[in-house]
């Protein structure tokens, strides 16, 4: 296991933050045609891939063209959801002022509405990353992904739950912002909930109609083959995105925070939390693009609105900073990180283990600091 990050004083964290801010400004100043060329090239490949996939499924016959069609369509959906959709919706390309790359206008090929996503992901998850009780991405409301979450008997079934989530991931993502458990527990009445859920239900309806009615109907006699192919392509995309996203915050060594720990957090401390709450996956350029550069989860959480294709060149600088400030840079191969997540999900389905004392002392330290240095409520900007 990697050694845990050193606890930084507020001053150290702010110095760390200032260095990251400087790196950020350097890249922002350098944004230009090259970034636009990259994303347009990915959009090109995604479109070519979609047409190839659909043609192979619609007019092809035999297993070979079926596998090719499913793969091409899955690739198109993965690129659309990850490198294009996720990154565009973060506002990474808003500076280009190209309407096709507008964060508030992009709609992706999945059942989750972009509106819900921008709220639950861009705002909630990226602001309150890994804060227990505030970041609903910690276990998505039903998985126990860290020992700090109290064990409950229902967690025994979580290996099965996680496997089902993997297969149906787009539905999990789509329903995430609806906070269904709140309605089940009676915290929110049904009618307002139904009103909130309507855009999701509508989008899901159109998505189902597109992949399982319209395109199959266009294929006439090949309809069953097309419907099944579309199902497999959606499923492959679900498995891939699930695997990548679970490697982002749940491998061994990633930290969670309590609300007390982050009270009066400065901009520098926000950076420290993003770093310690995320984990990278090592791989080739193609692998990074297929993950939407979420393989650079650390850089993504430090700089969520910088074009993701810049993360690989920023990573060595971030890594060097981490070494200087005694911070763990959590990274590993895809099998290593995925294996770590799987082991964790299995282990945590059972009670325990006892929470390491490290977290407890840090809570105490943070609390002591908070009382001595009361920063204004919106400290991140003051820093």
């Amino acid at each position, binding site marked *: 296991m990697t050694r845990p990050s050193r606890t930084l004083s507020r001053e150290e964290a702010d110095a760390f933050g200032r260095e990251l801010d400087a790196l950020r400004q350097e890249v922002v100043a350098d944004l230009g045609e090259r970034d636009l060329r990259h994303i347009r090239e990915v959009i090109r490949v995604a*479109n070519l891939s979609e047409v190839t996939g659909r043609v192979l499924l619609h007019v092809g016959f035999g297993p070979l063209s079926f596998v090719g069609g499913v793969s091409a369509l899955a690739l198109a959906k993965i690129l659309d959801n990850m490198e294009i959709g996720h990154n565009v919706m973060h506002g990474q390309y808003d500076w280009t002022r190209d309407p096709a790359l507008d964060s508030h206008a992009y709609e992706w090929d999945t059942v989750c509405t972009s509106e819900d996503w921008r709220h639950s992901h861009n705002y909630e998850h990226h602001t309150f990353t890994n804060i227990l009780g505030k970041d609903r991405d910690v276990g998505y409301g039903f998985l126990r992904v860290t020992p700090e979450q109290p064990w409950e008997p229902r967690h025994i079934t979580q290996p099965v739950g996680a496997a089902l989530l993997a297969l149906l991931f787009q539905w999990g993502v789509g329903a995430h912002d609806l906070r269904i458990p709140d309605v089940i527990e009676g915290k929110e009445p049904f009618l307002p909930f139904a009103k909130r859920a309507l855009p999701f239900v509508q989008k899901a309806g159109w998505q189902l109609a597109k992949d399982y009615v319209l395109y199959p109907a266009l294929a006439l006699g090949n309809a069953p083959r097309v419907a099944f192919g579309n199902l497999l392509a959606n499923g492959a995309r679900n498995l891939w995105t699930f695997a990548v996203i679970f490697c982002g915050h749940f491998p061994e060594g990633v930290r969670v925070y309590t609300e007390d720990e982050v009270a009066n957090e400065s901009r520098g401390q926000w950076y420290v939390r993003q770093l310690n709450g995320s984990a990278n996956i090592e791989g080739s350029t193609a692998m990074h693009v297929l993950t939407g550069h979420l393989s650079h989860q650390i850089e993504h959480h430090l700089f969520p609105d910088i074009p993701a294709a810049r993360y690989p060149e920023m990573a060595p600088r971030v890594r060097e900073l981490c070494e200087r400030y005694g911070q763990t840079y959590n990274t590993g191969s895809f099998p290593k990180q995925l294996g770590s997540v799987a082991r964790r999900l299995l282990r945590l389905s059972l009670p325990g283990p006892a929470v390491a004392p490290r977290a407890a002392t840090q809570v105490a330290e943070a609390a002591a600091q908070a009382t001595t240095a009361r920063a204004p409520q919106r400290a991140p900007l003051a820093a």
Partner: protein
Amino acid sequence: MFSKTTTASPLSKARDHVLRRLMLDRQVAFWTNELAPLHAQSGTGSCRARVGAIIQETPDTKTFVLQPGRALTYRAGQYVSVEVEVNGVRMHRCYSLSSAPGGDEVSITVKRVPDGRVSTWLHDHVDVGAILGLGAPSGDFVLPTDVTGPLLFVSGGSGITPLMSMARDLVQRGALRDVVWVHYARSAADVIFGRELAHLARTQPDFRLHLCLDDEPGAPRGFDEARFTALVPDYASRAAFQCGPGPMMDRVEQLFDAAGAAGHLKREAFVAAPAHTPSVSPGEPVQVTLLRSERAVIARGPGSLLEQLERAGERPAHGCRVGICHTCRCTKQSGTVENLLSGELSSAPDQEIQLCITRAHSDLKLDLA
């Protein structure tokens, strides 16, 4: 400035809705752009055009001959908004059309402005074959449809472009009669369309051209009332059109006013990059115009624009309050702002800002409700 897109019929609205819901809209946009780029939708809402030829007019001026995807209807003297990707960023500038209406091609003539991002980019990076966006032609600096009386053109520097369009239009219509043109430039080499003007002066009997050059020995620099009235004694009885630097046009205007002929003079303001708006120190009260609800509020006190607006009783959409989630993003149409993360000041029009990391340095116009 840009023509608003005409209201779509319910049928085409329904079609667009279905296309969007089936994720086909952007596939259509992508494939149109790949296969027929001139017919792809342009951000300005009008059309796209291919650069067919580039003519170096003077050392710092180029004419771009454009082939639009569909015929452009305009009147001589009007301008278009040109959309160009400047190092990956879409930008718009208005340029007078210098061509005569009616042809398949249109042209704009662009002077390189020092520190002008768009003109510099057009000069240095746009080659034949490049594709630009064009807005709908607009402007009321136009010739009357029926030209009868004597005309006077007064231009300075690159202000010659709309007048050249008018002259070409007159020649084309066989209506070039009794025209006097006084043009001001630094030197003969700086006269845009110099050869064409000289040709007109040689071949058109009723066309008189006076070039006033700064580098002529003994001649006054720039506009000079005495010289002007000596060149065109009957100026007040002519229908006059002028385009050039502001101070020059002001003086011509005063001359016409004094002669009681203000009604004879039409003026085209140079469409230049917007000047910096008067700046205040952060926290000082500024007026923020919320364009979508056509209201104005006063923003003052410490903190970001988001905090100031909230203090003024507004509830703009927002999320993280630290600049990462882009929920509070909106378009600033005018005004000077500071980015709190980078400390950068900007007065650019039509700029995307995030309220929570922006501080006002002047009155602002925001695309907010």
